[in-house]
């Protein structure tokens, strides 16, 4: 059985910008694991790590295929992966807890009343019935030629859904991981509140003295090689990724930090992908932050409006969308950097590869990708070259390489996001000339 993940719909992907600009949807984090890891755990009896008879294949937008191929374990946009084995094609946005499909059985396509395909189980012998010119034709022919089953599965609709569900997902992922206890080092004096069965400290992880781990309201998972420096307080549910460092952080409940993050100040109910830094004081709450982001000292976001009304967010290429939630923070794309003292408005969207120079006032709620926000307006700034140079330096400091494929992907993202940016630059020019 081969797991096939498909992420090719621009219309759906836009709801997960700015994070989805530079990664397939299944690479989004929620709880302890990515969406892919959750789906894979539901579908195949063995972990995808130990390939055996089980493997996977990915179909992503063409512009990111080369860059993703370099970091993916399985074939990317390779039509030959649709032959030679039974297939289980899954919509990466289906909530894993709703997915109760048997890997074995006859071919069937599960779809909703509008015809959105949630999954397609295709036995090897039926593959010859299907059109394999493109993944889109393949799925369309499966829908047409294989038995259809109408089903209701919940899906992730917007990026903020992941933030709002993060605390619960950490709790369920902790239970699924089945790990507890201390494999690393927890130094005294310190305090552990709650049951020790709700705490896991991975190997090589080090919890310094004067740290409080509070698992009374949810589990705390500190992954391999992480370091918790003195005067940090960690409230569960919480996941601290491999090799991440907490620097005297007030880590409120519901946080997920990816690998190699540096986290200080106060963070609440937020997801931060790997290699990002929020080193200093300042509050971040109910936010989703990409990779290689640097938040300058005292960068702070609002996650609640003064009138307690629901928060709207403007997504790139879309108008304002009411999240229906009163607690929503900021959404920040990969490689974006904020200056010291940046103030982020409630429901603030900052695209990828943006540079923010604070003005002392809260930022506008929408700043497009590749924008240089200077003197209170969006400008062209020093353009792409300067941003790429900074990205190269940031990545090399952590032993990662900026590849030609990566640059080609970012060039494509630059073009894709040009309309919103050009519009913002025009508005900025008007303000500049006033």
């Amino acid at each position: 059985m081969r797991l096939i993940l498909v992420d090719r719909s621009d219309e759906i992907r836009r709801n997960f910008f700015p994070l989805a600009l530079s990664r397939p949807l299944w690479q989004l984090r929620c709880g302890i694991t990515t969406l892919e890891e959750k789906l894979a755990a539901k579908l195949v009896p063995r972990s995808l790590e130990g390939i055996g008879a089980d493997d996977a294949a990915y179909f992503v937008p063409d512009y990111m295929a080369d860059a993703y191929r370099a970091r993916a374990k399985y074939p990317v946009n390779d039509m030959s992966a649709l032959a030679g084995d039974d297939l289980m094609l899954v919509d990466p946005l289906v909530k894993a807890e709703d997915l109760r499909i048997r890997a074995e059985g006859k071919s069937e396509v599960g779809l909703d009343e509008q015809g959105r395909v949630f999954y397609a189980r295709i036995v090897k012998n039926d593959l010859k019935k299907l059109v394999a010119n493109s993944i889109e034709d393949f799925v369309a022919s499966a829908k047409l030629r294989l038995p259809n089953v109408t089903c209701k599965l919940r899906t992730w609709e917007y990026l903020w859904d992941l933030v709002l569900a993060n605390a619960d997902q950490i709790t369920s992922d902790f239970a699924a991981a089945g790990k507890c206890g201390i494999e690393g080092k927890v130094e005294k004096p310190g305090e552990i509140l709650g049951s020790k069965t709700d705490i896991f400290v991975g190997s090589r992880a080090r919890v310094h003295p004067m740290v409080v781990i509070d698992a009374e309201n949810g589990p705390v998972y500190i992954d391999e090689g992480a370091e918790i420096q003195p005067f940090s307080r960690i409230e569960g549910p919480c996941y601290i990724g491999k090799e991440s460092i907490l620097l005297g952080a007030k880590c409120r409940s519901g946080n997920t930090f990816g690998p190699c993050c540096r986290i200080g100040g106060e963070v609440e109910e937020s997801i931060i992908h790997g290699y990002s830094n929020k080193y200093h004081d300042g509050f971040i709450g109910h936010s989703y932050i990409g990779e290689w982001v640097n938040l300058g000292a005292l960068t702070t976001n609002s996650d609640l409006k003064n009138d307690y009304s629901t928060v709207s967010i403007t997504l790139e290429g879309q108008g304002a969308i009411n999240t229906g939630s009163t607690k929503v923070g900021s959404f920040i794309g990969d490689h974006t950097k904020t200056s010291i003292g940046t103030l982020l408005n409630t429901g603030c969207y900052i695209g990828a590869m943006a540079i923010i120079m604070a003005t002392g006032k809260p930022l506008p709620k929408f700043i497009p990708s590749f924008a240089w926000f200077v003197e209170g307006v969006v400008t062209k700034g020093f353009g792409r070259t300067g941003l790429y140079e900074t990205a190269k330096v940031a990545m090399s400091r952590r032993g990662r390489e900026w590849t030609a494929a990566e640059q080609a992907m970012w060039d494509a993202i630059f073009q894709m996001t040009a309309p919103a940016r050009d519009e913002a630059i025009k508005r900025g020019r008007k303000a500049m000339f006033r």
Partner: protein
Amino acid sequence: MATVEERVKAITARVLGLELDEIKSEHSFTQDLGAESVQSIELVAMFEEEFGIEMDEDAALAVETVGGAVEFITQVCRQQGVELEE
């Protein structure tokens, strides 16, 4: 209509807070006129608006002197079909 040089100098004076007669063609924006990086960004934006042109950021920011800016802008205006006072 003023010449390209006059218009470039007028904008430079406005953005950098200088008197017109303090600005010479051979002056470097950063070394002689004290332009900070933020002001360089502003200068590029103002030149684009003034002349109604689109400049490549990397090429524009590589220009070092006032005279260099006049030359560069003249060239871009010609490429983009913008009429100029000689």
